[in-house]
């Protein structure tokens, strides 16, 4: 039986290259066009990041010097730098244990129902605008005590860090290999010894990573600190008074509209952005290495 050659007789030239024509050509061109669009979108996002960091680096480089980092106002930002470090440190000291405990609860104890409740609570907390958290701490501490204080700011930052640390730790705890858990169960190790002696040590790298990412986020938070630690009486490090800090300093300088102030604000921005990018890039690299090791 002879098959009929479908191309024969219709001007089919078997030697010509196979190029689509007509409708197919149009479809392929459109597909190419959308591919190009998606690539351009990604390039735009990277370009925006590049432009912001480049501007901050170029304009801030003139202001940043050893003197800028180690003297107080009006020439430097030493007090603000120490203040931010102190506030973030207190916040992390509050948020990290609570966050890790929540993660342990969700992994070790919670049933599906309470797990869902906790997930919702953490997501809602994470989604709260930071200025709302500022208002909350203002109403909770600053208004009754009639005194702005860095400690209130630290609590606000702790609330911001908490869901990040808890969700991050939970993800790492989920990655702990099941046979480690089973081995400790099989040896008759009690639950708390298993958690403290086996599960936490193997997840500690990931927990630290999640914490560093949360710190990077908290270090740049301005809105809550603006409400509870912005009227500086002096260069103090007492957490129960308002302490100067980098984000609020940048905010005030940017609102003043004074060129010399702008210069200092660019310098402070460069220092802040450098710390944050360094911390989050480092944490990400650590996380990738950790994941690799644990999934092996």
């Amino acid at each position, binding site marked *: 039986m002879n098959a009929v050659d479908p191309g024969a007789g219709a001007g089919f030239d078997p030697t010509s290259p196979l190029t689509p024509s007509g409708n197919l050509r149009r479809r392929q061109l459109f597909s190419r066009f959308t591919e190009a669009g998606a*690539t351009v979108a990604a390039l735009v996002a990277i370009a925006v990041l590049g432009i912001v960091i480049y501007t901050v680096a170029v304009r801030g480089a003139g202001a940043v010097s050893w003197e800028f980092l180690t003297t107080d106002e009006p020439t430097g930002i030493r007090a603000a730098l120490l203040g931010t470090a102190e506030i973030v440190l207190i916040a992390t000291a509050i948020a990290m244990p609570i966050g890790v405990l929540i993660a342990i609860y969700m992994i070790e104890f919670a049933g599906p129902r309470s797990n869902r409740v906790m997930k919702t609570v953490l997501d809602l907390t994470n989604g709260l605008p930071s200025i709302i958290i500022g208002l909350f701490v203002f109403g909770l501490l600053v208004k009754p005590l009639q005194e702005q204080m860095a400690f209130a700011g630290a609590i606000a930052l702790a609330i911001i860090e908490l869901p990040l640390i808890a969700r991050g730790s939970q993800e790492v705890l989920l990655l702990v290999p099941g046979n480690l858990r089973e081995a400790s169960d099989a040896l008759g190790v009690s639950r708390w010894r298993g958690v403290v002696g086996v599960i936490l040590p193997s997840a500690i790298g990931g927990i630290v990573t999640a914490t560093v990412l949360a710190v990077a986020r908290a270090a740049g938070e301005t809105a809550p600190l603006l409400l509870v630690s912005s009227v500086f009486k002096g260069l103090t490090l007492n957490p129960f008074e308002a302490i100067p800090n980098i984000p609020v300093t940048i905010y005030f300088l940017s609102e003043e509209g004074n060129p010399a102030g702008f210069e200092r604000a660019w310098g402070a921005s460069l220092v802040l952005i450098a710390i944050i990018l360094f911390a989050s890039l480092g944490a990400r690299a650590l996380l990738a290495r950790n994941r690799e090791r644990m999934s092996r």
Partner: protein
Amino acid sequence: MLEPASVPDVRPPRRDRSAERLRRIDRIGDGLLYGVCAFACLLSIVTLLLIVYEVVNGASPAISKFGLGFLTNTTWQPNFGEFGAGSLIFGTAFSSFFALLLGAPLAVAIGLFLSELAPKSVRGIVSPLVEMLAAIPSVILGFWGILVLAPFVQKNIEPFLHDTLGFLPIFGPPQTTGASVFTASLILTVMIIPIVASISRDLFLAVPPDVQDGASALGATRWEVVRGVVLPSTSSGVVAASILGLGRALGEAIAVTQVIGAGSEIKASLFETGDTLAGRIANQFPGAITELHIASLFYCGVVLLVIGLVSNLLAQWIGRRFSYAQAAK
């Protein structure tokens, strides 16, 4: 039955004091661990409830004075004790929706690029860079916004849009400074993109490859695979991601107050100054003295809190429905 009499008793003594002690410690330890973990969870729940309570409590003088009329009244005059959030709610919605209109398609396109087009090595570099956009503190983005973006927008983009699309009322004549709702929207767009892009990338990556291969095998082009398979099966997740992004934009305070120019009238043009709920709180709270002024700012916070919680729950609900649908398949 033989019973050798001389075999020594090798069974452990029934009451070993140290084993008993160990068991007691373990029992206490287990209880303690459970108790401490449960306490931490309760603490987080109580904190969330307390946040709602404190914000509503702080607003109560304004709520009892202005009632729901606060939401529609557009006059905001601290000197006369006259407060209404109408123009702020309008400004919040206007700037955020415009930002979402601009940001969501861009972010979805980025998500598609990362999941469908980019080779793994490129994805490994571009993904963290896009997420890095979210790591830039809003105060720095806002500062960059006033000094770099606003003048550029005012000199180049606004006149262009006014000349070409000026027949639309939202593209009115540019103002003298670049501080405008438009500039604020652009800054918000930058903040929305990393959130929506990274969520939609994960959604697209989770679409089973054999379904996509099937479509390709039937002759679909790459775009047709995306249009016919990837997007329909992830659409509710993308909507949820966009709502999360919108929530972020609605609640952003610092960057917005830096670039939006603190206007207090409702204007149809994007190029005029305006203000948002969060921006007004950040701008006026440090200087607010009268109790009613502070309470009114808290009232703005209540509105913001309601919007934030509702949008977040909505996104979670849509996302969960999506994952159920996915699991049922």
